[in-house]
């Protein structure tokens, strides 16, 4: 696990390549219906040695799914069990994940539970890594892990700011990078890439003209 950069990671089953027929140039026009519904999260091969801390986690938390890709273990836990799982991983002596490296989210709009919230954990004692993952729907409450790792405070604020994941029990849930009065959640996949922005605030008429000109250019 610690050896992330080894040239040949414990080769997991490589997910099936996407249909090879559309030419690369034509792909930009693939209709939106083809939006992916989630990462493949390939299960570990039958001969993979499951680290003991994952086995002990499975005894504490039921309903987990395992995945091994490029040598990284991912444990998918039910959203309701996140605090139990996080506390266990931090406190169990064979896990000792005392360092929350990263906490982020991924948006998969076609799915009912559209957000993957991902916790990248590291143990400074055993020097191993694991990723925890929970799936949550748009307004579904997700318990904050600030009580487990203090580091999660700002990281969760950023996920709230960018995705609008509804963290509960967070001591200071405010936007962090965007202004306090910002509407919408920029990192969501359905958030427009370019928008009115400052032009709309300062001069709405100019913006309307610009939009019209763009639409006409598109039609032609």
């Amino acid at each position, binding site marked *: 696990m610690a050896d*992330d*950069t080894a040239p040949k990671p414990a080769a997991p089953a490589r997910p099936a390549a996407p249909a090879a027929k559309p030419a690369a140039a034509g792909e930009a026009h693939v209709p939106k219906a083809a939006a992916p519904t989630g990462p493949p999260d390939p299960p570990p091969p039958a001969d993979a040695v499951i680290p003991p801390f994952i086995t002990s986690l499975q005894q504490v938390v039921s309903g987990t799914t395992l995945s091994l890709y490029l040598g990284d273990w991912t444990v998918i836990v039910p959203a309701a069990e996140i605090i139990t799982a996080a506390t266990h991983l931090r406190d169990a002596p064979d896990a000792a994940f005392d360092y929350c490296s*990263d906490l982020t989210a991924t948006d998969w709009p076609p799915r009912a539970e559209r957000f993957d919230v991902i916790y990248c954990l590291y143990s400074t004692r055993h020097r191993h890594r694991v*990723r925890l993952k929970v799936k949550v729907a748009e307004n579904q409450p997700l318990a904050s892990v600030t009580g487990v790792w203090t580091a999660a405070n700002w990281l969760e604020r950023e996920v709230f700011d960018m995705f609008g994941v509804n963290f509960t029990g967070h001591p200071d849930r405010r936007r*962090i990078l965007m202004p306090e009065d910002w509407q919408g959640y*920029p990192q969501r996949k359905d958030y427009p*890439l370019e928008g009115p922005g400052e032009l709309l605030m300062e001069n709405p008429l100019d913006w309307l003209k610009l939009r019209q000109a763009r639409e006409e250019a598109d039609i032609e």
Partner: protein
Amino acid sequence: MASIQPQMVHGAMFDTNELVINMGPQHPSTHGVLRVVLRLDGEKVVDADVVMGYLHRGIEKLSENRNWTQIILLTDRMDYVAAATSNVGYCETVEKLLQLEVPRRARYVRTILCELQRIASHCLWVGTHAMDIGAMTVFLYAFRERELILDLFEEFCGARLTYNSMRIGGLPLDIPPGWDKKVLEFCKIMDVKIDEYETLLTHNRIWLERTKGVGVIGGAEATALGMCGPTLRGSGVARDVRKDEPYAAYDEMNFDVPIGTAGDTYDRYLVRMEEFRQSLRIIRQATEGLPEGPIVGKVPRLIKPAAGETYHAIESPKGELGYFIVSDGKSTNPYRFRVRPPSFCNLQALPRLVRGHMVADVVALIGSIDIVLGEVDR
């Protein structure tokens, strides 16, 4: 507010309320556009709130709409005083997704560039940090040496700040002839200069008074707070991605990871000063043992990793710089591009560090955690 009644002091009525003052975003010692709202009791900081986002350009969102090669340019704009390190981190993450093997020569050159970059970044840090505290001279000295590194980078890739110095699978170009000699020459110069900085600061009475015992944080608390890099090592935690999860050619290098004991500003300073020397040690080994061979691996013409996600971390001068990238296997851009910015995670500790200290120490502590706002805000 308004918790304490005005008191009569020496015949005059003094207001003893707590005072809220705003520091930044336009303030010379916040190293960019950082705003700190301080709640003060006299000159003591009761609490601090960090406000950021003034430099937010949405690099993550932009990257999700660029192709894999174009993103290298965007990573330059995060930690702009250590752009080459961000390039290496990104390229290695994509190589991991592509399961691509990088030739040994390319890995060695990456190691040299990363360490040169670390010295350049630490030069900037020691200069500005010392100037914040009041020692003007070090700034001029450190920038003189940083210039030498920028010259080396200019010769390697043509740019002096935002390098775009890496390609997925290897290097854009081989090193120019004679470049390795110049690197070794630089090491010889730098060896002496580090002692020079230390003469100015390490035993300086004013420096000791301003940094010893300021912003003390223990190892366990620093780990839980997600601090990283020299800031964490100053608290005695021997956590270095180069040692623990070696990337580039660090597994073939001999170097030590310096750690502090007290966890104060002075120890963080000492750790970084020792890192200068260790970086020079690595550069010497990598330059002298630079293997011959190709500089680019077998990169597919169209970069399109199979569907899947990965996290890969490297040790940037500021700490653990991680990339979490999701590929959907269909498009030529990443589905999700996430940067774990070390400066952001270190900055989170600032309110904890400044509590109970004087206003002037806030400046020392902002310098001590070594942040770059381009990376905090992205």
